[in-house]
């Protein structure tokens, strides 16, 4: 299990155990955490699971795929540390990961 902290745009924190193998998006959705919509269920087709990865975790969460990059390019409020959380696979390595959510998902 990896402990992941999801921080809503208003600052509300949710720390939960996520099973390795799931995506960071699935961890949030299956625990009914607000702020990650994930309309397409993880097909990298919608950009409604946008999160900001806390800087100290950027290396461990890896890099954006080409498809993810071009989806994010058109999402709102994109920053250097933006990722689509459906594209980050949870591993034991990610125990302690902190992500924050944008104001809204489109």
């Amino acid at each position, binding site marked *: 299990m990896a402990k992941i902290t999801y921080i809503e745009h208003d600052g509300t924190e949710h720390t939960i155990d996520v099973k390795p193998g*799931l995506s960071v998006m*699935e961890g949030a*959705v*299956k*625990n*009914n955490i*607000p702020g990650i*919509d994930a*309309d*397409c*269920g993880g*097909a*990298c*087709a*919608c*950009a409604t699971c946008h999160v900001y990865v806390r800087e100290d975790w950027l290396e461990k969460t890896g890099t954006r795929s080409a*498809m993810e990059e*071009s*989806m994010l*390019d*058109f*999402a709102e409020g994109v920053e250097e540390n933006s990722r689509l959380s459906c594209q980050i696979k949870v591993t034991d390595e990610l125990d302690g990961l902190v992500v924050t959510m944008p104001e809204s998902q*489109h």
Partner: protein
Amino acid sequence: MSEARVVIVGAGHAGGTAAALLRQYGFEGPIALIGEEPIPPYQRPPLSKAWLKGEADADSLALKPTEFYAEAGIDFRPSTTATAIDRAAKTVALSDGTTLPYDSLILATGARAIALPIEGKELSGILFLRTAADAEALKAAVGPGKKLAVVGGGYIGLEVAASGRALGAEVVVLEREDRILARVACKPLSDFFTDYHANRGVLFELGCSVTGFVGEKGRVTGVQLADGRVIGCDAVVVGVGAHPNDELAKDAGLECARGVVVDLDARSVTDPAIFAIGDVAHRPMPIYDRMFRMESVPNALEQAKQAASAIAGRPRPAGECPWQWSDQFDLKLQIAGYAFDADEVLVRGDPASAKFAIFHLKGDLVQSVEAINAPPEFMMGKQLILSRRPVNKAKLADPSISMKEVAA
């Protein structure tokens, strides 16, 4: 607020999401979630794609873990249907003999696959793809050496065809019209998909009329065509559209028009205590200034948000651009909007490169875009459709100009 009772009839993507959102939005009253299927809400789109190919398991399909419902105080009742609504008494009668009172009722009964009323339809091996159980039966029927006939060249049929080929089956698609996707896509897109599938071994019979199924010992062995030919097969998938499950609403006197007629809060125009969301709703779509029914997950989610917001006393969520997606082989198709009243079709990029987009324009407004492996066109198209901002067509037609510049 804490005394209000919500009953949700239908535990698909729409109903399951509405229940979860009510809790996210702080609604504390009792919620009952009535599901016809034996399992908790799950995602249907992967059934014809990742799940069929064995790349996703049942756990990953589930919207929430099974224990979520009890933990969230949601009274989930599987294998149960609603049989009648008493609007005066504000109660719903269920197939298990109980009657539930409600303050707000959400109808999320979805749509059902249309069956062909033709000879041999009762043979085993004639399958549909709507539920997880349907998908189990289909998965068991496809594999190396098997021959699958797909009746209907729509998106479901093509996804099944692609997955069937990936699993090593022979696949033939039988389509009544003279091109696939005839009702939902323009000719350039039909042609592209036909070629792409044909090059990967999918056979097509276009402009053919299916008149019956033939079988041996109760099991289907072929599809009978009007021209006399029989297309041999081990199994058939029928994907010729869906019909909304609006009978419960009709029987209760709610206004229906192939779907329950609702407003921008997903509330029935007949009864303010009743909402309808997802495939069963006939809803307004202000960007097109018309009402219609959609069969897509994003629509189900948008309406679940509308109904949950109205019930929990939150402001109405901002309108969204309708969209949908399809995965076939290594293609990612993303569609935004609907081509209502379009007077021009503009192709951006070269279909031969399998990376292009088709824009449907009404004057200089984008009505819809079909994007093949082209996320920028999809994402920017969505924004253009929603904002109703005119677009420079010369720039749009030139793929060397970025979508950001086109929309600037």
